[in-house]
């Protein structure tokens, strides 16, 4: 059966009421833990005062986005098990980040770094390399914001509201309170967002299966229907990934996404806004609570199959399922939760991108003597511009599967791993080698992605893997080889303003961490 997208008063009223609440909160946030918002550190990092709980909500809002609520269930609905890689991804990302985010926090705190590019400039003494990290961060953030826009668009359309104006209104409001309150706004709104999302998810994963005869029935129905579906690359869907290429694709998508996540500027912003390394590390241990929710939400894609819904655009799997089962008012509640869940990360992403632009491009190249106030003002304006850039991605790239946008961002951001993450552990790589490796990785990854019509995996030597991993391998190969070549030719490369003890609250000076090798 098909689901009608009609406008219902109760739905709209509840939806608007929740949106009004978060809008008010967004503006009120400016006064929360009051600081001078004319300074970038205050506007863009909330004054670096967030403790465990606020950091938990903020990072949760940062990581579990429209990706979780719309894109992953859509993929499950359309291709089955292949979409479930999001679960292992959001499990392994925390032990991975546990190893390096604490170090980044510490060195950033000691040296006053606000962005990942700040760190790279200090570590390698290279403006070019810092620029490459800033540029990649800005670029990779845009398709990620675009994914949020699509999520918002989907719920608005599902309420029977046509046209682009609701998105524009929602984004204007978002832009205004972001401009006004900076990072405090999404941090405060995250609390409301999480509460409403948790209520929605708990109701959905208990109530809907009870109507469908339990999880056993849902998996059976999905197992029967999936082989008749076809992924964009032409392979049939399945309940369990079968065959070597499905397995390598699954594992590399999980691994590559995990590598990428904590290099995104918005996630780094969330981490740097916390008040200590201890808060960061503790959060890596407790954030997976959200991952359970992600896994259950993913299964909503199967519930949409089991319910026999006819859905043309897989992005509507979750909204249509909710329309079908929920009363009107709760539908409004759930849609608002999803909509706010898209706006929170979009706000942090635009703030992080603005921090990057201001610190590493504007102040570095355009106005070296910018004052603190000017810096904060530029960041505010940039946060508006970035959102327009994201719109371009929505309009010009194919978005049947919104997740492909996020995975494209991952291909790019992974190319900063050798400089950024490996750089947190060792200064072995030569800055010029890193820059060339980055460049080749970016060009190669983009060409491969485009040649696949932005499908995320690529087959080479009989192995199917996430394009980001292929590009990263090439990047490492070039960075490593060129470093050795430069070293043997005696080309000096010594600049490093950080000292080993800047990184770790745990160790004495001069000890490289034993975990460095694993991170690659």
């Amino acid at each position, binding site marked *: 059966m098909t689901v009608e997208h009609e406008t219902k008063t109760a739905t709209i009223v509840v939806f608007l009421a929740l949106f009004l609440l978060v809008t008010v909160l967004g503006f009120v946030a400016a006064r929360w833990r009051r*600081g001078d918002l004319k300074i970038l*550190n205050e506007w863009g990092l909330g004054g*670096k*005062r967030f403790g465990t709980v606020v950091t938990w909500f903020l990072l949760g809002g940062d990581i579990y986005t429209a990706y979780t609520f719309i894109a992953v269930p859509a993929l499950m609905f359309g291709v089955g*098990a292949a979409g*479930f890689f999001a*679960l292992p991804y959001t*499990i*392994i990302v*925390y*032990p*991975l980040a*546990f*190893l390096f985010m604490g170090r980044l926090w*510490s060195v950033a*705190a*000691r*040296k*006053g*770094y606000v962005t990942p590019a700040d760190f790279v400039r*200090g570590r390698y003494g290279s403006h070019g390399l810092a620029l490459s990290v800033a540029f990649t961060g800005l670029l990779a953030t845009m398709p990620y914001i675009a994914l949020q826009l699509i999520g918002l668009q989907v719920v608005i359309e599902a309420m029977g509201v046509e046209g682009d104006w609701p998105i524009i209104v929602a984004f204007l409001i978002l832009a205004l309170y972001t401009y006004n309150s900076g990072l405090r706004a999404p941090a405060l709104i995250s609390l409301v967002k999480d509460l409403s999302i948790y209520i929605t998810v708990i109701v959905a994963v208990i109530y809907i299966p009870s109507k469908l005869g339990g*999880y*056993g*029935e*849902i*998996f059976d129905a999905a197992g029967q229907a999936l082989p008749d579906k076809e992924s964009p690359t032409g392979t049939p869907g399945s*309940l*369990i990934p*079968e065959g070597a290429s*499905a397995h390598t694709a*699954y*594992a590399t998508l*999980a691994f590559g996404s995990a590598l990428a996540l904590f290099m995104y500027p918005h996630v780094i912003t969330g981490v740097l806004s916390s*008040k*200590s*390394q*201890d808060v960061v*590390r503790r959060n*890596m*241990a*407790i954030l*997976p*609570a959200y*991952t*359970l929710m992600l*896994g259950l939400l993913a*299964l909503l894609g199967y519930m949409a199959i089991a319910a026999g819904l006819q859905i043309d655009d897989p992005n509507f799997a979750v909204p249509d399922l909710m329309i079908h089962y929920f009363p009107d008012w709760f539908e409004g509640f759930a849609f608002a939760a999803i909509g706010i869940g898209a706006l929170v990360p979009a706000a942090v992403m635009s703030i992080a991108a603005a921090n990057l632009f201001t610190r590493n491009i504007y102040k570095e190249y355009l106005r070296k003597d910018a004052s603190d106030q000017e810096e904060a003002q530029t960041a505010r304006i940039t946060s508006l511009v970035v959102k327009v850039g994201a719109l371009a991605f929505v309009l010009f790239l194919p978005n049947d599967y919104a997740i492909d946008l996020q995975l494209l961002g991952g291909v790019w951001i992974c190319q900063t791993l050798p400089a950024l993450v490996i750089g947190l552990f060792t200064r072995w790589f030569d800055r010029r080698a890193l820059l060339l490796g980055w460049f080749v990785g970016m060009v190669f990854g983009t060409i491969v992605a485009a040649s696949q019509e932005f499908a995320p995996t690529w087959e080479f030597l009989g192995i199917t893997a996430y394009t980001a991993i292929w590009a990263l391998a090439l990047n490492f190969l070039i960075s490593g080889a060129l470093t050795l070549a430069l070293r043997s030719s005696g080309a000096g490369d010594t600049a490093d*303003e950080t000292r080993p*003890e*800047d990184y770790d*609250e*745990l*160790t*004495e*000076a001069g*000890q490289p*961490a*034993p*975990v460095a090798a*694993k991170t690659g």
Partner: protein
Amino acid sequence: MEGRRDTGSRRWYWLLLLPFVGLLIPPIYAHEDPELFGFPFFYWYQFAWVPISVAITYFVYSRTRTREAPSGRAERPPVEAEPGRPTPGDGS
């Protein structure tokens, strides 16, 4: 260069490899049986790794925490000592 205390606590970091081994080799778990509460093995196995990974990460966190290390550390970094300081960054 080896700090005696640190070498001990640093060994715990290797535990963090376990979730990678458990989750990045799909042939281990890409099966339908045994089912649990209607969930095929492929699904409940991966769900099960959420609490396991939390437990491992929390354990490593508690073992490598500075505050629980034996006292007498002379060069505790200033930021650690004053977590409430609003604007770090005068360190350079």
